[in-house]
């Protein structure tokens, strides 16, 4: 039990930081209801025109749909590769495990802009060979996102495996289970929450990826973040405020529901 609780001063300072953290998320709301064409606050008159614009302009829906598809491909691909890799490290414990891990972590540790330039080089080179996987294509973006999010999947799955008791695997093997049975019927079912977390995180990271996407797309593969970026750079389009409100509401709901579920589980125990 914590005996020394933070005092009044500490509480006030922390509250200020909390306000600072939430401030920009709340500021979006009055801007999204403005009747004006530019970024301004809704005064006496509130308007839904910018929410309407999200529906009327098919580009927004196309961006959302493209981002969902890219997120699905990238997260499935990255999680599958990361699961095989982490399993390999866990089962084999190769002498060069540190080196392999270092390579797998590289896209996460390197500055995003360097990764972006690297993937730009990769995709423009591929474009010279084919039209399917390359610069400004669906598959190109999905592959680039898979590179960027794979390290996060490796981290989550490795953590899940490190909490798994090796004796379960040893028992399965001593009872004559082959490699396939051990992996698919013993190990993977035991780390299913880690795999689920990896899929979820990699999907979210791909869904909101913008740093690399800016380098590797121009007019064809316009993901939702790319679309928002175009509306943010020069003349600020208040439709961005409307979509931001929607995104913030979704995230807040998911986090709140998750916290409520956790509280209930704790209460039941």
């Amino acid at each position, binding site marked *: 039990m914590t005996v020394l609780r933070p005092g009044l001063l500490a509480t006030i300072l922390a509250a200020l930081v909390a306000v600072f953290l939430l401030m*920009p998320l709340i500021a979006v709301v009055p801007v999204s209801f403005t009747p004006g064409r530019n970024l301004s606050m809704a005064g006496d008159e509130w308007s839904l025109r910018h929410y309407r614009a999200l529906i009327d302009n098919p580009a927004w829906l196309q961006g959302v749909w493209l981002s969902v598809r890219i997120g699905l491909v990238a997260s499935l691909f990255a999680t599958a590769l990361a699961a095989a890799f982490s399993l390999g490290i866990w089962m*084999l414990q190769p002498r060069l495990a540190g080196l392999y891990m270092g*390579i797998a972590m590289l896209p996460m540790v390197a500055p995003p802009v360097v990764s972006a330039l690297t993937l730009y080089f990769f995709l423009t080179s591929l474009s010279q060979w084919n039209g399917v996987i390359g610069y400004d294509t669906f598959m190109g973006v999905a592959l680039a996102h898979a590179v960027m999010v794979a390290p996060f999947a490796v981290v989550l799955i490795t953590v899940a495996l490190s909490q798994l008791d090796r004796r379960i695997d040893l028992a399965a093997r001593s009872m004559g289970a082959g490699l396939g049975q051990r992996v698919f019927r013993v190990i993977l079912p035991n780390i299913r929450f880690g795999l689920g977390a990896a899929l979820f995180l990699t999907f979210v990271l791909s869904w909101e990826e913008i740093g690399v996407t800016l380098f590797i797309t121009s007019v064809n593969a316009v993901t939702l973040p790319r679309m928002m970026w175009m509306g943010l750079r020069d003349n600020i389009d208040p439709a961005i405020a409307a979509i931001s409100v929607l995104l913030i509401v979704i995230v807040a709901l998911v986090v709140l529901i998750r*916290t409520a579920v956790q509280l209930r589980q704790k209460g039941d125990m």
Partner: protein
Amino acid sequence: MPRRNGRGILLTRGGIMLRSRLLLLAPLLMFLALAYLLPFLGVMRWSVTLPEPGLGQYGTALSDPLVLSVIWRTVRICALVTVLAVAAGYMITLLWVRGGPWMRLFVELCILIPFWISVLTRAFGWLAMLSNRGVLNTWGQDLGLLAEPLTLVRNEFGVVIGMVHFLIPFAVFPLASAMRTVDERVLLAARGMGASRARIFWQVFVPMTRSGIFGAMLLVFVFALGFFVTPAILGGGRSVLVAELIWLRIFQSPDWGLAAAISVIMMLAIGLLLMLTMRFAKGTGR
């Protein structure tokens, strides 16, 4: 060659099994080698061949006044952002780890909700808050506090605010794990010996969380160096950082060789920084 598995038991099964297990490692490593390592070598080649062979672009990157001023501004802003984000993170983590149950819950939501919201939405939130017709300036003028709008974005102030906001949650996690390991009995002993609350905090608690502070500062600083989106939106092209300079040199006024050279320098700098800290961490661990 016989191999040992994790528990030191000799594997006597056939070589096929060993190879099939190496097949687990291969796909990701091959994928990253093809899609990341090889292209990075390509970027390195750009840096020494474009526009002409030689190390000229590295010379430019390290002597051109424009590039140097951008590097200097990046280091300055990142240092400021690191100090601010870790200080703010420390304040809120203190309540998250040591507050009452309801306070903990509230603080957790304040940290997690912004953490899961994308960098673009958060940067836009600051535009909505700080721009000329944004919330702060509109309220300020309506209440008569401001005669005319303050310029709060499209300058360094906006960049620093946006970056600090983005990075606070990243500072919180290492700080929280350090604060959770603080032994309660040491604090009680300090109190028992008559130390004031302020003294317990500054002379006992803060030194005991030093490793967390150090880890948080490193993480935030490394993240901040590669920042692109927040400075580009909140700086409005007036306060260009290194990452945005690379983007400009690729897409706006092309000079691919220079962009590649700056990228290689950046990669080296961050690798060096990480290596130094690992050595430092080992040194203090002994």
